[in-house]
């Protein structure tokens, strides 16, 4: 098989793995306000962990570039949120404020896998011996990220099936970006730290702006503190040990 096809297939597998993150929600039948708050808290911890991993991934490609990217990411979402209307907006089956939040979540996670797709391609460009390992690693890494997206979308009224679809959708840039990045490593490597930093900054801002306040709304502060700290620790350990 030509190397390019291998890279594309690898990226597709990693994207589909993201959809697996929706599975735990098949077992959560009722969405009471407390379940919704807990779900937001879990999403917050997982996504926070993922954004730290992302920013560290950017470092080998440039320290200052990563920092600049991260701050641009924060500024970008801050400004986008001012510009996006939160009334009259429709996103899938969602309307209004819930639609704005869910849409922003998908935008942010898509930007994140855009950057990760480039990272996969650049990594493959470095030699094919690691290829299988990298693919498996990214695929597994994507599962809790799909869980985070579903945990963020379910409370806003999205069905499990559509949460899974949007999870996979948000990862599609991985195969799409991996191929050109693999073919033109020299062109893509310099922009990689900006992209990874940007995605990390945008994700962190979203966690603090949307997920955490919604968690505090219907759960006590100690409950939120416990759930977010522990799911954050779990995500950091998971992505670090992979």
């Amino acid at each position, binding site marked *: 098989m030509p190397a390019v096809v291998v890279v594309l297939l690898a990226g597709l597998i990693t994207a589909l793995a993201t959809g697996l993150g929706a599975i735990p929600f098949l077992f959560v039948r009722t969405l009471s306000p407390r379940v919704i708050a807990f779900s937001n808290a879990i999403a917050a911890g997982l996504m926070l962990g993922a954004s730290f991993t992302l920013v560290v991934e950017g470092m080998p490609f440039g320290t200052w570039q990563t920092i600049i990217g991260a701050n641009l990411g924060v500024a970008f979402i801050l400004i986008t949120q001012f510009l996006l209307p939160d009334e009259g907006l429709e996103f899938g089956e969602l309307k209004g404020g819930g639609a704005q939040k869910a849409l922003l979540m998908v935008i942010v996670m898509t930007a994140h896998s855009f950057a990760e797709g480039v990272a996969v391609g650049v990594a493959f460009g470095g030699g094919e011996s690691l290829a299988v390992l990298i693919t498996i690693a990214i695929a597994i890494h994507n599962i809790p990220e799909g869980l985070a997206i579903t945990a963020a979308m379910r409370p806003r009224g999205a069905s499990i099936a559509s949460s899974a679809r949007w999870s996979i959708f948000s990862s599609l840039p991985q195969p799409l970006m991996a191929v050109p990045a693999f073919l033109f490593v020299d062109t893509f490597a310099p922009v990689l730290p900006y992209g990874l930093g940007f995605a990390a*900054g945008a994700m962190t801002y979203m966690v603090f702006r949307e997920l955490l306040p919604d968690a*505090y709304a219907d759960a006590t502060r100690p409950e939120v503190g416990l759930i977010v*700290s522990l799911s954050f620790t779990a995500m950091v350990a998971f992505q670090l040990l992979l």
Partner: protein
Amino acid sequence: MPDLWLVALSAAAAAAAAVLGVIPVIVSGEVSPRLGWANALAAGLMLGAGYVLLQQGITLSPVGGIAGSVLGVTFVFASHRFTNLADVDLSRPQDLTSATVPQIVTRELLHSAAEGVAIGAGFLVDPRLGLLMAGTLGLHNVAEGAAISAALIERGWHPGKAALLSAGTMTSHVPAAVATAAWIGAGGRPWVLGFSAGAMFYLILVELMPESYRQRGPTGIAITASAAMSVVVLLHAILVG
């Protein structure tokens, strides 16, 4: 072993920073919303530094780092429970008036001891990380000192006394930091690194973030996010290269 005098001195300086938070309270008679900036920045720096501590701990020993973090979270949660102040928000004077002074002092001494462990753990990794931890927690103490002394002044305390007590409750930084730096060997290191991280994560979520939301809104959040990401990259560049 790290230079214990440097550890003690920087932990003491962090505790003394609480006095700075009292001055604006004495001048204006209330907690200035401007302290929200210190709070938002401290939250981001503590989060980023905590991530690096956790990462270092897990890299040394996955079990120690992860279990240490769970212990740190549990320690602060339990100490809030123990003082019956689990659901009391320090930054809201109306909440604090329902708490007794011994309750507040006990809770603050325990909370600050956990933060002292974080200062000591920072020095175990690298003196620069130790100094950064002390500076970050000092900044956090400015906002916290303001909240505690405002509550004490409200119930008729003399401002000078209120300032001394609020800084006094943070002096547990010093023994905790020195003991950590002096006694923790290679085997315990991943545990204290994880412990510091977990304790700080929990504190950020139950105290710093809710306070920052009330005081500074979206711009405070942007500061927290920027600080967290930037400090991780800078620390990584220094420690890992």
